[in-house]
């Protein structure tokens, strides 16, 4: 690294022309900014002076807020619940009052908001993963705040953004009246002001995807109420572009030995539970090594998503690509090694001859384990087993596919049937599951099933304080489900020391 540095230096001719001796005393071009609005697009980096302590403290406060927001997302909280849950946390860590509050600390709050955003932007621009996640959470925060903004201030803020939106005139309204209303669902909310504006469809891809706008020759007719989501979209677009830019400038930051440790520290404490998931955290024990022949006997400990895949596999002696991938990674997560995994699939695909298996399936299994593929794939030992969040957010399976979370992909009737087939017969529980699923809280339903199935053992664990509290948290990963279920079933053995237990596994960052 050191050797390459001189090459990366800026060409002498391109350096700032300020005399270095005077530079220290030169005035910054814009020291303090005026914050006219509560909301901020964070388009301009801060240039005023703050202390190192503030730099770190504000960053950490914002980080806490983002982590909580992410937790809300993982727990599938609805926007209202999230808003309710976040209110005290925001108030404590990152208060931001409206103009109308006449609070004396308005400027200070907004400065804090502005600076902390940029601190984290620096900390999280290093890798693609962090950038994506940061942009997603910042967008969530922005959306949350925008929704809470005072109506008038929001309008003023949006107007100040100066986006070029063309209002749809009366003539066009009359021409497309019916279609406009049908496309944008405008007649459901009576009394709402009726207005549309027109933009290139590329500006509102999310709305297009959900068919919530009228399209005519590449122009999207957007209902006035979608304005908020467009502003949010624009925010996220600009933020992503900005992060890309700061990533490129980041190497130069390395030279600052005061900031880089702080930034490094901040970004480290922001690793997702998903990425923090490690091999040893999930394999059940040291002494019980899972092998191909054992799978059928431990299926009863699998979460429903995996049980379903297993059943489909046994039924058809085949699984389609995404199902195969999901199941392979899960098996890898429970400690099945590559050779056993290949053996498992080879035996399961009993209708497929050797050469076809080797041709079409073998490579993918090996790739998932990091046995083949690019350098990065090998170094990372293949892919990470999918978390509930991943399963809950990916595209729904289409005909013939069975991957994903059954709580989400199955119709309620089919779900109940599947649960009964796997031995869940508690009528009360099935009723609650049906209700919970109806509210789209799929993974709560899954946890409910787990808790009810293991009621007695869990009680014992709690009473005797056998597990650390983190081991009793909501399950957010199919492999955690398996691990806990397996351990609960073998409680006695674990206590006797026949099988060793390893420490807390889940959610390193929470």
């Amino acid at each position, binding site marked *: 690294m050191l050797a390459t540095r001189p090459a990366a230096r800026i060409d002498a001719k391109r350096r700032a022309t300020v005399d270095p001796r005077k530079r220290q005393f030169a005035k910054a071009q814009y020291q303090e900014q005026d914050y006219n609005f509560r909301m901020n697009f964070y388009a301009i980096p801060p240039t005023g002076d703050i202390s190192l302590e503030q730099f770190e403290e504000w960053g950490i406060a914002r980080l806490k807020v983002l982590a909580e927001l992410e937790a809300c997302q993982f727990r599938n909280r609805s926007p209202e619940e999230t808003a309710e849950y976040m209110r005290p946390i925001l108030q404590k860590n990152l208060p931001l009052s409206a103009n109308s509050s006449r609070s004396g600390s308005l400027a200070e709050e907004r400065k804090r908001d502005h600076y902390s955003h940029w601190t984290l932007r620096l900390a999280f621009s290093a890798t693609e993963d962090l950038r994506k996640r940061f942009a997603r959470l910042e967008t969530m925060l922005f959306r949350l705040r925008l929704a809470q903004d005072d109506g008038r201030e929001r309008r003023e803020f949006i107007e100040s953004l100066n986006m070029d939106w063309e209002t749809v005139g009366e003539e066009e309204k009359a021409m497309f009246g019916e279609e406009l209303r049908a*496309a944008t669902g405008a007649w459901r909310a009576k009394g709402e002001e009726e207005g549309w504006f027109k933009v290139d469809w590329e500006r509102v891809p999310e709305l297009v995807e959900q068919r919530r706008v009228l399209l005519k020759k590449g122009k999207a007719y957007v209902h006035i109420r979608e304005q908020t989501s467009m502003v949010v979209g624009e925010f996220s677009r600009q933020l992503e572009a900005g992060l890309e830019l700061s990533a490129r400038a980041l190497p130069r930051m390395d030279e600052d030995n005061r900031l880089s440790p702080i930034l490094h520290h901040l970004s480290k404490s922001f690793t997702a539970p998903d990425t923090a998931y490690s091999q040893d955290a999930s394999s059940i024990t040291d002494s019980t090594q899972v092998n191909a022949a054992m799978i059928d006997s431990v299926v009863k400990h699998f979460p429903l998503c995996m049980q379903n895949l297993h059943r489909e596999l046994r039924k058809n002696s085949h699984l389609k690509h995404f199902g195969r991938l999901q199941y392979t990674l899960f098996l890898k997560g429970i400690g099945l090694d590559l050779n056993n995994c290949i053996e498992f699939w080879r035996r399961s695909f009993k209708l497929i001859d050797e050469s076809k298996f*080797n041709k079409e399936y073998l490579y993918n299994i090996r790739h998932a384990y990091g046995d083949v*593929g690019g350098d990065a794939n090998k170094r990372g030992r293949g892919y990470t087993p999918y978390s509930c969040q991943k399963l809950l957010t990916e595209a729904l399976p289409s005909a013939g596919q069975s991957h994903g979370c059954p709580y989400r992909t199955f119709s309620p009737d089919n779900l109940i049937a599947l649960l009964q087939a796997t031995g869940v017969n508690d009528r009360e529980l099935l009723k609650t599951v049906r209700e919970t699923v109806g509210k789209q809280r799929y993974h709560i339903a899954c946890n409910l099933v787990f808790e009810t199935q293991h009621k007695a053992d869990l009680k014992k664990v709690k009473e005797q304080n056998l597990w650390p509290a983190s081991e009793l948290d909501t399950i957010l990963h199919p492999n955690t489900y398996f691990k806990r279920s397996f351990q609960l079933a073998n409680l006695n053995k674990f206590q006797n020391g026949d099988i060793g237990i390893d420490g807390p596994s889940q959610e390193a960052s929470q």
Partner: protein
Amino acid sequence: MPHATTPGSSPPIEDTVMSEAPIADANDAANDTTGTVEDQEDDVSAVQPPAKTSLEDMFDDDDEEDGEFSSSAQTRTADSSQEAKPTSNSSSKATDPEVMRVFYQRLFPFRYLFQWLNHSPTPTTDFSNREFAFVLPNDAYIRYQSFVSADQLRKQCVQLTPTRFEIGPEYSTNPRDRKTLRKASAFRPVAKELVFDIDMTDYDEIRTCCSGASICQKCWTFITMAIKVVDAALREDFGFKHILWVYSGRRGAHAWISDKRARQMDDQKRKSIAGYLELLRGGDKGGKKVNVKRPLHPHLERSLNILNPHFQADVLIDQDPWAEPAKSERLLQLLGDKTLTAALQKKWDASPHRSSAQKWSDIDTLASAGSLSTLTPKTLVEVKQDIRLEYTYPRLDAEVSKKLNHLLKSPFVVHPGTGRVCVPIDVRRVEDFEPESVPTIQQLLKEIDAYEGDGREDEAGEKMQDWEKTSLKPYVEYFRTHVNTLMKDEMGAKRARAEEGESMDF
């Protein structure tokens, strides 16, 4: 050497690989853990299993400028063993390298393909930075090929005799130079036609005439319907003009949209168009596949109007999807109203040989006779609309459309299974298109022979192209017209920009 070449372990040739193992997911999975560009590259080849051999070939390939073709060694041995005159060999297999060679030499319209991808008669980076991927006769798969001109591409095809080749995106630099770049991130896809893939396999649960790889005129109607609906949406809603529909050689169709605006879309925009067009969601256990709000979105309203006549004629009568009791259960399940389904079940049990059309009208008869419990007459109309959509609405393989860097089989190549040429479909006469009458490669070669045997060649003069002597002619001509309008548009825009630029200089 981690990637030992084993000739036996080669990629599958069927196009189902693309639909069953889309590139998208592997990329995502890789991004979760690492997310470097290098990594993505390798994943792409991972999903298309032949990476083992392809890597090997890529190395070989770097020597190409020296005129060495180690990867074509096998083809050469094939040459010497087959001295027979290829065009007269009527029993030859479609994928026979010799037959393919003659096809590339004499019939494949490289010039128009070049213009189609280049958007101008003079070579630009639109073409030279474009990725091509070849499937060789030994089933090896070579990616990241690029060519400066139509002639180079032709030369390579004649030399390697690929069983088919695919077209990828235009990259920020020449794909052949990707390994010499200092930064891996400098190599990224920048533009590609927006593509769609409709495949008959997705219709297996609703077609009754054939299944799997086979296809007949009856089930081809599903593809016709899909083309009509998607084409209308792309033209009217998104304003695209240069849409080329291509027969995929066996049982599906591809669409290539070459408008500049479409070519430059990023993944998110592609995904949103795919989402706009996609309607049926959920797997086998998901229950109802159509869940749309009312009033219907104008796109769906229009689609329903296009599809209604097809539903009556092609689905109810030709496919007869609910003739068997086991199948009519699905219909009852979709209706969802307990009283109504019980009444229908009773009626159908009493007379088991009722056709789908009769069953469909039974719904209204019984409903108006008052056997509705949860549904109202109005909601019944909506439920019936949903059912019609489920049985007619296009089923897209959306993964293909969502990614900028997805490869898709080129028009005019030969389908290795059927020997049929992937010809363009004239969308104005889409109803008349018959997959069975699409010329096969063997047939075309015979046609050339017959033409030359007739001695007609002299009359036409020297300039006559070989494809003009065959039944490929109308297809190439259609393609040429398509390409010409595209180039005209593109050049018009360029000229306008150039003039504007000039006037600003002064």
